[in-house]
């Protein structure tokens, strides 16, 4: 097939309209979400004292951190799906959840505490946290990568890592309703580690899946 023939063929396909990336990503995440929720309700479930926990600002702050991570990573993912885009202009969005976390830690430091700092940091659920967040993230990550394949990222591994961040953010939001450790120190340690694992897996998978 010579190039003129190829051009003619591409022109014949001009009427085809691909889904916008945002829609493709949303649909793929909606398709993957039930799998993650199934893992959550089968293995973990919402903590029994959730109604009283909601009055604890540090319980609520966990959601602020994880939702900020999910939202900023979704925005950065959509930006990175364009071939000429780089992390330079929008990458700082990913610092928003970190900023909230730092503010929460300083807030907690200023309050009188019944338990010592290390006890709060180590918590009771570190193993559950490190297992549940990656396990619930995985279906979301596969969905996110599937949706982002409509894009054309310049650096597939970077785009994959950000897809990992968004999946971890969503999974951690659900997980936070199970976890009884509300200290921002616990979140900063274990949620961050779990998120880093998912981001690394995302980078590895994205390097292959997001090439165009």
């Amino acid at each position: 097939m010579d190039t003129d023939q190829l051009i003619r063929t591409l022109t014949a396909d001009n009427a085809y309209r691909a889904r916008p990336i945002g829609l493709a990503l949303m649909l793929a995440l909606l398709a993957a979400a039930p799998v993650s929720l199934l893992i959550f309700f089968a293995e973990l479930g919402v903590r029994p004292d959730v109604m009283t926990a909601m009055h604890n600002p540090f319980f609520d702050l966990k959601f602020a951190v994880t939702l900020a991570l999910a939202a900023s990573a979704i925005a950065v993912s959509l930006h990175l799906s364009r071939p000429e885009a780089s992390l330079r202009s929008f990458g700082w969005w990913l610092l928003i959840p970190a900023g909230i976390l730092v503010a929460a830690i300083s807030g907690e430091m200023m309050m009188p505490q019944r338990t010592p700092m290390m006890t709060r940091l180590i918590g009771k659920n570190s193993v559950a946290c490190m297992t549940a967040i990656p396990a619930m993230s995985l279906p979301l990550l596969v969905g996110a990568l599937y949706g982002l394949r409509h894009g054309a990222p310049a650096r597939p591994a970077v785009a994959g890592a950000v897809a990992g961040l968004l999946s971890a953010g969503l999974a951690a939001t659900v997980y936070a309703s199970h976890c009884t450790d509300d200290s921002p120190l616990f979140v900063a340690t274990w949620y961050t580690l779990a998120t880093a694992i998912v981001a690394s897996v995302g980078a590895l998978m994205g390097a292959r899946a997001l090439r165009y």
Partner: protein
Amino acid sequence: MREREDEWTDLMRSAISGDDAAYHRLLKAITPVLRAAARRGLARAGQPVDQSEDIVQDILLAVHLKRQTWDTSAPFAPWLFAIARNKLIDALRRRGRRIFVNIDDFAETLPGETPEPTVSPGEVTAQLQALPARQRDVLQSIAVDSTSIKDTAAKFAMTEGAVRVALHRGLASLTAKLRDR
């Protein structure tokens, strides 16, 4: 140069709003620029320049399949050159060389410089043979025999919609095969 790139942007906007003639003109207009850049990249990597047509076709397929990632309010050229650069690096890497491709390779081409294709490209044609029969027949009918979608539908006793689907899937799987080979 500015004018040329503004014209591309206008053509692409028209193409996206359904103007097939504008799309055809745009693809024809960018091809010599891509060809010149591909040759320059190959030459710099010490590769024979007669492989440039494979790279040009690779870029054209990517432009086509990824055009929804172009923001219609932005200029077209930077988007195009980002795709072209990515594909050129990929192609050179596959040929065993790591090389930096300068974005100016694309922007530098003078308007008067319109190289002709050297050798008929082999890679797309070879991968075409590996497609499922239906996609291959439709692609061949439209590309090689230059039959319209309507006549292709009549020839294979398909609906026009089915021809369009086979055409698009054929182009997408062709691209996937070229990428993963």
